[in-house]
């Protein structure tokens, strides 16, 4: 399936550096957003390291192609376990770097990734950078937020962690939450840092993504977050599935029933 993206990152209005990092590739069909833990040392180093490791790992895995069927016993598909392994790999790298360099001690980052494999998607995340799936009129968060709701007591003194309950690179091992499902032409995915999701609601993201092109939507969402204070770095990645092919798919669906020959072709094309 053809995949397109638009990605945008902005320092926001209050921070002096951008600790968000992202990686997008239409060739790999891999999209990763990472948000360095603010207030910690070297949050930007951690987030950059995370996206580089993810890219490297997935790139290597897709080139080797098959270590695949060996994992049948697990509850995940081979792609999903590959993505989880990539996060584990990134965690290892950040953890090692944090311990070997004094300047990077205690650094960590979130990671959210979407990988489109054929006509399914796999999403995995650690931390509080959300991933939304927009299908038809509905928006759904397919990531699991690893944070403490704002205002709970645990956060009072540990404020500098933003109440994260999991992060990449702060422990030797990390457990990612995974979601995999089917995606259909016209579906969109939005990956963002909490700089956006704390200021802009799900409904507003849905509106922007449904009405506008991916590029315009990401721009307008960043502008909206900045207009509301923009107190953190803001990163938005909008992924469109079946972007270019969707017009013919739509034509087929409308005119297909009128033309028997076209109907069968549409069915074959659709399956």
């Amino acid at each position, binding site marked *: 399936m053809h995949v397109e993206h638009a990605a945008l990152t902005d320092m926001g209005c209050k921070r002096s550096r951008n600790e968000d990092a992202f990686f997008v590739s239409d060739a790999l069909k891999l999209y990763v957003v990472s948000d360095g833990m603010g207030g910690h040392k070297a949050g930007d180093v951690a987030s950059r390291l995370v996206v580089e490791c993810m890219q490297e790992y997935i790139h290597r895995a897709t080139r080797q192609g098959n270590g695949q069927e060996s994992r049948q016993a697990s*509850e*995940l*598909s081979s792609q*999903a376990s590959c993505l989880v392994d990539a996060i584990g790999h990134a965690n290892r790298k950040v953890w090692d770097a944090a311990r070997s360099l004094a300047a990077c001690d205690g650094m960590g980052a979130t990671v959210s990734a979407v990988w489109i494999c054929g*006509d*399914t998607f796999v999403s995995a995340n650690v931390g509080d950078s959300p991933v939304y799936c927009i*299908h*038809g009129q509905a928006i*759904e*968060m*397919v*990531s*699991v937020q690893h944070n*403490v*709701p704002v205002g*709970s*007591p*645990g956060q*009072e*003194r*540990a404020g500098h962690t933003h109440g994260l*309950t999991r992060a990449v690179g702060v422990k030797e091992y990390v457990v990612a*939450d*995974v*979601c*995999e*499902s*089917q995606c*259909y032409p016209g579906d969109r995915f939005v990956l963002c840092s909490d700089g956006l999701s704390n200021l802009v609601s799900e409904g507003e993201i849905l509106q922007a993504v449904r009405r506008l092109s991916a590029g315009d939507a990401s721009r307008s969402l960043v502008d909206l977050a900045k207009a509301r204070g923009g107190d953190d770095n803001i990163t938005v990645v909008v992924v469109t599935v079946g972007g270019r092919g969707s017009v013919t798919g739509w034509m087929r669906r409308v005119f297909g029933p009128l033309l028997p020959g076209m109907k069968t072709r549409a*069915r074959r094309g659709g*399956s």
Partner: protein
Amino acid sequence: MPVVQLQYKDRVISRHRVEAGGSLTIGRHPESDVVIDNAAVSGKHAKIDGLEGGYFITDLKSTNGTFLNSMMITTSQLKHGDSIVIGRHRLLFGYAKGEARPEKESAPLDKTVLMDAGRHRASVPSADVNAYLSVLKGGNGEIPLTKKVTKVGKDPVCDIVVAGFGVGKVSFTISKMPKGFQVNYISGFKRPRVNGEPLKTSLKLREFDTVDIGATRIQFVYRESLFM
């Protein structure tokens, strides 16, 4: 015997004793020793064990975590005066006056803690045990939805193999999303029918929804576990 005091906004709600060799469970579930009836608290949220080397707090894979002196923990030894935060509630741990306290309060007990982890894993029910597919027609049995994606179709690799003219190799899948389950049409010119309606793309499943494919009827059953 050490005492655990449950507080909410500096008001003491209840006091509980922890026996050496015993344990104290904390959670929203009414059978917990310390019941905290609040949406932020998991059914089985945490527990305190009196073991040989002292008293230990263990988080039972709760949704919102257990904090010991503002640090998120999974297992940790308790010292006199420690404050455990669960949701908006606070639990104060303290030894009684003159009571013997463990000499080393620095958690030297790798072995005990490990054992403990194994035991708690066994006692934490999986969230998915109660979500399953029940075959109503064209077969029988129940298929628990433990995988992220459960496949239904003609192909023998599917989790549920269904025969019938026009049924796809993989006709549809049921995927586990963070908020519930979703049924997705995949292939085959005979589309699955959810509650009688042909499935176009994907749909959220509600309890007792039925899916017909070929001569088979499957019902989705999902009960939220008491302990989650």
